[in-house]
């Protein structure tokens, strides 16, 4: 059994961070409210259960935070750690800029924090370790493997489409003066839904699931998502890379089969080196899938320096 955990260590770590972040966001919008000397737990700000005879019993009863200060406030579009350090979604930042909105200091600082973290270290790791849609698309991929429909696809289009959609969302933001991608993003629907209540956003998420399951493998994240494209660009020169060792490889191709962006593994079976393509989401699936120890995470620069000695 221990073997299972080691074999899936990155998968477990990813589920832990993805769910942990959602949980922290969720908790920060949980609160206690006292009505008639009784404390009630409120989550997602939903007071509906306190409506009696069209009167809202909770009105004007002030709330107390469940955890104060909340560790992670807001949602993935914009958040604050411990009510202090801002983080903002880089694509949201760009959209505000193009939509002609006002760029505040917090929004800009939050953007810098993200660019720093992902630009220097994690690259497109956001997609694998933070983005909640990854849970949905991984589920679709899992079912594909179980249902043996892995290679069925109804539509085919280029993986570069996401960059075109990125450009389009900025252009439409400029044209309409509203955050174009934010208005339809299933990612936002999901994380906002968890914190503030789902509503109709459920259908957007279902659409992504069905699209990935029946239409195109890794259709949303691999081909369409402009946020993934943004993180690709930000993390183009990031340090964390997957390293491949040709000598150990037995060319079983397990890694290529499992990789959600398998075009980045074009060096497999050809030459040793780093996975340098910007689309790599650093999920570590290939490393786990490899039974021959040919793949590793590596902080690019440290290793190359050592090798030179």
């Amino acid at each position, binding site marked *: 059994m221990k073997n299972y955990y080691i074999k899936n260590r990155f998968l477990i770590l990813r589920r832990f961070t993805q769910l942990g972040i959602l949980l922290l966001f969720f908790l920060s919008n949980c609160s206690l409210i006292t009505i008639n000397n009784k404390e009630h737990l409120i989550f997602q700000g939903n007071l509906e259960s306190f409506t009696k005879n069209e009167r809202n019993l909770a009105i004007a009863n002030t709330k107390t935070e469940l955890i104060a200060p909340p560790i992670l406030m807001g949602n993935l579009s914009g958040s604050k750690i411990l009510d202090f350090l*801002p983080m903002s979604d880089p694509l949201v930042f760009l959209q505000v800029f193009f939509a002609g909105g006002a760029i505040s200091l917090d929004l800009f600082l939050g953007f810098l924090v993200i660019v720093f973290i992902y630009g220097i270290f994690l690259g497109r790791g956001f997609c694998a370790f933070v983005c909640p849609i990854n849970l949905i698309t991984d589920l679709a991929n899992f079912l594909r493997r179980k249902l043996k429909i892995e290679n069925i696809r109804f539509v085919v289009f280029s993986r570069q489409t996401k960059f075109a959609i990125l450009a389009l969302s900025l252009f*439409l933001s400029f044209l309409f*003066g509203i955050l174009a991608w*934010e208005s339809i993003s299933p990612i936002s629907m999901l994380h906002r839904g968890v914190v*503030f209540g789902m509503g109709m956003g459920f259908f957007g998420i279902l659409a992504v699931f069905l699209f990935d399951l029946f239409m195109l493998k890794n259709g949303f994240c691999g081909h369409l998502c402009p946020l993934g494209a943004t993180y690709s660009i930000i993390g183009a020169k990031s340090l964390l890379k997957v390293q491949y060792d040709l000598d150990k490889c037995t060319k079983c191709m397990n890694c290529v089969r499992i990789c959600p962006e398998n075009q980045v593994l074009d060096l497999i079976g050809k030459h040793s080196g780093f996975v340098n393509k910007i689309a790599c989401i650093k999920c570590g699936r290939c490393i786990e899938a490899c039974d021959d120890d040919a793949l590793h995470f590596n902080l690019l620069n440290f290793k190359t320096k050592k090798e030179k000695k």
Partner: protein
Amino acid sequence: MNPQRRRTLKSITQIMGLVSFGGLIWSAYLAEAKDNTQMLFPPAARDNFLSTCIKCGLCVEACPYYTLKLSSSGIKGIPFFTPRDIPCFMCEDVPCVVACPTSALDKNLLLTNNKLDITKARMGVAVVDTFNCIAYAGIQCDACYRACPLIDKAIYLEYKSNTRTGKHALLLPIVANDICTGCGKCEKACVTEIASIKVLKHDQVLGKMGTNYIKGWDKKDEERLETAEPQKKKDSKNHALDYLNEESL
């Protein structure tokens, strides 16, 4: 043509096709999704609110009264409130505005002598439905007047004799449009089945006088007369003669 180049060209055309098709549907959606313009936004929402708010919900979390919600119609995720459910309580420290990371809720709109002043908020403006308001029907009621945080300033009572009885008074609530913050406490308090006083956005309520009118016997406004240029109506003579012939009427 080599196959590699053909493939690239093919995929570029494909992307362009896909993107323009998707872009059309997307634009149609964005152009339609304008419901939000009638929603009441949190205090100090700036003019280009929809292009600056990032839908993070920090304001929603900051409000101690559960007033704010994120919209699920129009452009989803925009914070708004429904006064008949929960009005804005006009907190003196305005936690929602302080929490906003983007200045979509703009502190500067509330500053008086460098201090936050919630009475400068203009979330909307209350309007009385004089047809259904029971005070206009001659029944004594001052629920909205009593509920107003700016009582006697944003809303006041005007006494008028009841012409039906000839001996009673009507106590009519009147809203001062320039002072009302649009918090909606009046709408919440209204006793009629559907509130007869409602908060609406400014552009749904307010008219515009234009500069050509001057309030008589108002010293300040009359000063404008001294600097006013006489405006001549610039009728073009030619036009007046030709319009019948040219059918440009």
